[in-house]
């Protein structure tokens, strides 16, 4: 029970699985992106086109310079970051609103709203995306209803708007669950004390509840933005051909364009962005663990 070795051994199976099937491929992919074509990379390198082979002992940045200077990639990157920021912002506003409403009102409506918002978690993403596409398409529900009153409604299918709608739709449940549980965990007495001190509900929410629930909120922001950043299904089904989200680009360059090296480089760009967001999450967790909050 107290032997540290046993705990370490028990933790090993998932760690080895991750190391072998995620860590190792990422490392070899990293080497491949630098132009090392041997070993595990030989199969991919044999069929890939437009590859940059290592010229020095550590490799070459040829693939990186090519991708990063590609104007199409740049506009795709900008679109990806833009969609991520907008979607995350909308998701958080909705999630915080729903969580606070539930905290202040124990009506059936408040509970119903929370249940409603987690429904998309149980619908496969492919279906959600497809449903959203048809709902906002040229012959979809929105335009059909507006046509009844003589308005020519917008066609959002295959636009960045549809990607944002789809991303919000699929990300909402997790964010609502995280934020709701964080907000519910704030003790009643702390809220009563603020009300007693003269704070309105809005002031109580801004000054007391949200700061105390900061860690779950940061977690929700992190996972939502990382999820949208690397998403494939939603933009693939609902988004425009250009500018495309990077998740779609990675797939296209790998399969359709047969340029695996460029595809990997893009994956690493997304990884770098996600890691930066991830660092924020780790920082927030450690800050809370060190006793600053609670």
């Amino acid at each position, binding site marked *: *029970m107290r032997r540290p070795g046993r705990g370490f051994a*028990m933790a090993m199976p998932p760690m080895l*699985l*991750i190391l072998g099937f995620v860590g190792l491929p990422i490392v070899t992919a990293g080497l491949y992106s630098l132009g090392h074509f041997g070993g595990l990379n030989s199969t*991919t390198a044999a069929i890939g086109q437009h590859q940059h082979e290592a010229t020095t002992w550590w490799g070459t940045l040829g693939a990186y310079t090519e991708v990063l200077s590609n104007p199409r990639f740049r506009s795709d990157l900008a679109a990806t970051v833009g969609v991520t920021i907008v979607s995350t912002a909308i998701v958080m506003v909705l999630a915080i609103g729903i969580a606070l409403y539930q905290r202040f009102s124990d009506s059936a409506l408040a509970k119903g709203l929370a249940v409603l918002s987690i429904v998309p978690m*149980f619908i496969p993403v492919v279906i959600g995306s497809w449903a959203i596409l048809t709902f906002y398409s040229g012959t979809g529900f929105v335009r059909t209803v507006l046509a009844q009153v003589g308005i020519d409604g917008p066609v959002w299918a295959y636009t960045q708007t549809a990607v944002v709608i789809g991303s919000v739709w699929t990300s909402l449940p997790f964010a609502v669950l995280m934020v709701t549980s964080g907000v519910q965990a704030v003790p009643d007495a702390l809220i009563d004390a603020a009300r007693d001190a003269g704070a309105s509900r809005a002031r109580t929410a801004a000054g007391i509840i949200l700061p105390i629930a900061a860690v779950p909120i940061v977690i929700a922001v992190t*996972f939502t933005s990382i999820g949208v950043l690397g998403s494939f*299904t939603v933009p693939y089904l609902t988004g425009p051909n250009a500018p495309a989200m990077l*998740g779609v680009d990675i797939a296209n360059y790998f399969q359709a364009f047969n340029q695996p090296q460029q595809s990997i480089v893009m994956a690493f760009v997304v990884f770098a962005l996600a890691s930066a967001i991830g660092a924020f999450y780790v920082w927030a*967790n450690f800050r809370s663990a060190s006793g600053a909050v609670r």
Partner: protein
Amino acid sequence: MDRVARTLLGVVVAGLCLFVFGPLLWLGAHAFVSNWTYPHLLPDGLTLRWWRVVLDDPNLAAAVQNSLTFAPLTVLASAVICLPAAYAFARHDFFGRRTMLIGLFATNAFPKMGLFATMASLFYALDLMQTVLGILIVHVIGTVVFMTWIPAAAFAAVPRSLEEAARDAGARPLRVFFTVTLPLALPGILVAAIMSFLASFDEAQGTYLIGAPDYMTMPTQMYSLVLNYPKQVAAVFSLMLSAPSVLLLLLVRRQVMGGHLAEGFQIR
């Protein structure tokens, strides 16, 4: 003032309802119509013939079967691999514990599509392409975070005094685990299992890359369906594909809402 707030709330709730359910209902309705001509509010006619198309297609039936096999298998494999680790993270302090917990998180940070692209060469080398094991590995990897973090938090939340009381009453450690710790942590483990089931059931990109065309699951089949069949067929298939998870939602809503999920995502 109060009336304004009330009206505003009503509009927001109605809007959210439409936002979440609208697309699903719109798509679902298409499963029962012969055709829907824009801009008519009502469909041209009702029919069940699209269901026949789906039910008669052997490919689609196979996909249903594959999905319903892989998802439980994934949950089982993931539980066996991850639950001991979850317990260790909750109750033991060992070298590299924090690093490992964060390392698991890194699997989420690397874009899935990029990961599958990079995994492909390894799978070729190990001869895992188009194998059940290969698909299973892809699915389990997608569940490791859920199956480790959420149960770890659930184990950690079991008060040590309850375990100590059982030890004091004369139970050996393993008995304490099975009679006290595990039952108390079960709701959290159940949530992890549900999340894993949904993740596996939802997984399309990796499965397609590794398993196609031998092993098609419902989501991978959905991609080709969307491109090759009339909208109504995809609608029928969507309803069928949603059924198991919606059933799950109705069964376990309370557990998922109970905060175990949120608890699990805070690294301690």
